[in-house]
């Protein structure tokens, strides 16, 4: 075992892994994290704790991860390259490991101008750091863990033992280069990969074929990203505005139909779309898990953690594996 994390154990067991997502609040109150952790516990093998997602200040990933851990939910701390240079990153990694965190996902992070897609003020005037990029960060974690060395070469008395993750946007442009970029992440040391949300399963299949031809799937555990759709509007937005995501028209039509069939009652229309959204998520999970080389799913029920139990049960992914000595 590289880290001994629950996620690593599930992946090593050969059973499909399930990760979820927990977004920390814009608040100093721990209750929201604790509440979400309680909802997710038992319904995933580990939950990503986002790092100031959408470039908005929230409880830090490490602090929220520790709050989740105390509730018995294994966290995957996320670390973006946007806010820290390599000194701060490595200091935080040592601290995170000392606090008991075992998984870390390395990502570039949304640019500081993103400000929740303009919905919040954010801090568009912040300095952007990007001392290292996500692939270099993966390499730094690996060097710390496996060689007991800092990036600069100084020795670490006790190395931080992280299960190292990275992201993959199969539908991102230029699409023919994406599998090669994924290979770089894996060569740098990524033990697991979570993909951007997949609605276009055919596209993902063809990208996975290229991934397999490069032998990447044997060196890392690829978890297909599933973003649980809540409404036809959300699917349309994802299709038109989220980079690297395309939503096939039949899926949008299905959601539209659920909405229209519910009539003019807004509450009913909402419920009908949510029900359809859960069905779509379950189907996507099953289709994605059938693709050779896929070792699990990363299910994001954004601000809708309560949907996880239903989805997992319907997808045949409940109960989650447990390990007696853990």
């Amino acid at each position, binding site marked *: 075992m590289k880290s001994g994390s629950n996620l690593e154990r599930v992946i090593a067991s050969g059973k499909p892994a399930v990760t979820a997502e927990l977004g920390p609040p814009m608040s100093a109150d721990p209750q929201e994290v604790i509440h979400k952790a309680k909802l997710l516990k038992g319904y995933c093998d580990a939950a990503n704790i986002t790092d100031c997602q959408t470039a908005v200040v929230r409880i830090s990933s490490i602090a929220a991860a520790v709050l989740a851990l105390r509730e018995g939910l294994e966290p995957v701390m996320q670390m973006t*390259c*946007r806010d820290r240079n*390599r000194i701060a990153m490595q200091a935080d990694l040592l601290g995170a490991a000392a606090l008991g965190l075992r998984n870390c996902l390395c990502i*570039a992070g*949304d*640019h500081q*101008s*993103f400000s929740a897609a303009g919905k919040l003020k954010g801090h568009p005037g912040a300095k*952007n750091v*990007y*001392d*290292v*990029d*996500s*692939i*270099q960060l993966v*390499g*730094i974690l690996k060097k710390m863990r496996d060689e007991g060395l800092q*990036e600069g070469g100084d020795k670490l008395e006790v190395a931080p033992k992280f299960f190292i993750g990275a*992201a993959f*946007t199969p539908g*991102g*442009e*230029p699409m023919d*280069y994406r599998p*090669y*970029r994924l*290979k*770089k992440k894996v*060569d*740098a040391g990524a033990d697991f990969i979570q993909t*951007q949300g997949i609605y276009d399963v055919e596209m993902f299949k063809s990208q996975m074929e290229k991934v397999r031809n490069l032998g990447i799937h044997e060196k890392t555990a690829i978890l297909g990203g599933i973003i649980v759709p809540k409404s036809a509007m959300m699917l349309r937005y994802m299709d038109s505005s989220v*980079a*690297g995501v395309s939503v096939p028209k039949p899926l949008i039509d299905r959601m539209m139909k659920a909405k229209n069939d519910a009539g003019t009652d807004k509450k009913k229309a909402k419920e009908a779309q949510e029900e359809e959204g859960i069905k779509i998520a379950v189907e996507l999970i099953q289709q994605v898990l059938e693709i050779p080389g896929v070792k699990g799913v990363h299910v994001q029920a954004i601000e809708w953690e309560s949907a996880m139990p239903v989805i997992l049960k319907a997808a045949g992914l409940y109960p989650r594996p447990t390990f007696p000595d853990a």
Partner: protein
Amino acid sequence: MIVGKQKPFEEIWNMVKDFKKVLVYGCNTCVAICHAGGGKEAEIIASMIRIKAAEEGVPMEVKHAGIERHCEPEYFEPLMEEVKTYDLVLSTACGVGVNFLSERIGNIPVYPGINTEFFGAVPQAGVFTELCAGCGNCILHLTGGICPIARCSKSLMNGPCGGTNKGKCEISQEVDCGWYLIVERMKQLGTVDKLYAIQQPRNWSTARDGGPRRVVLAHIQDLEEEEAKKES
């Protein structure tokens, strides 16, 4: 070239309004090309200040001048005596020019008339784009001649992030994704396999991160010394 942009006139007025004898001092190289601070622009700014001063009833003498370059002493030395008769120089040179003149002019303040933006080129009339960030360790041979440091909003070194959208950067539909351009260019050159290799963390000390930089050419210094000896 160095690209600059005129400051809002309100800001300029607030800088100059308490002075009695002002020289608006243009630079006729880079910032003239980008219509920000050449002799012509200095003349226009000077007349705007004069008009505003008259409107506000502020007695002020405003003149303008322009020289070829503000970043080498030989260009501004000949005019120095006259320049020193003003009580403010509003320089429309780039920040380099403002700094350089400021260090040499004695007790007279030199204020900036423009905002210095970046090193750029002129893809079409009236458009200027940033193409190099002066990092001190050029890697353009690895990236198809397109700079990931200056042209990727995150200065990524190992390929495009997940935010690239229809060839544009996640920060704006107006900004090309530098990495999209790099990959496409390298495909065209048949060298895309160079992008399969991992670029390790950079040593940024050659860039501004390492502190103010100097380039010293010993052989040129020696030559100058020899010349000086010969003359004496």
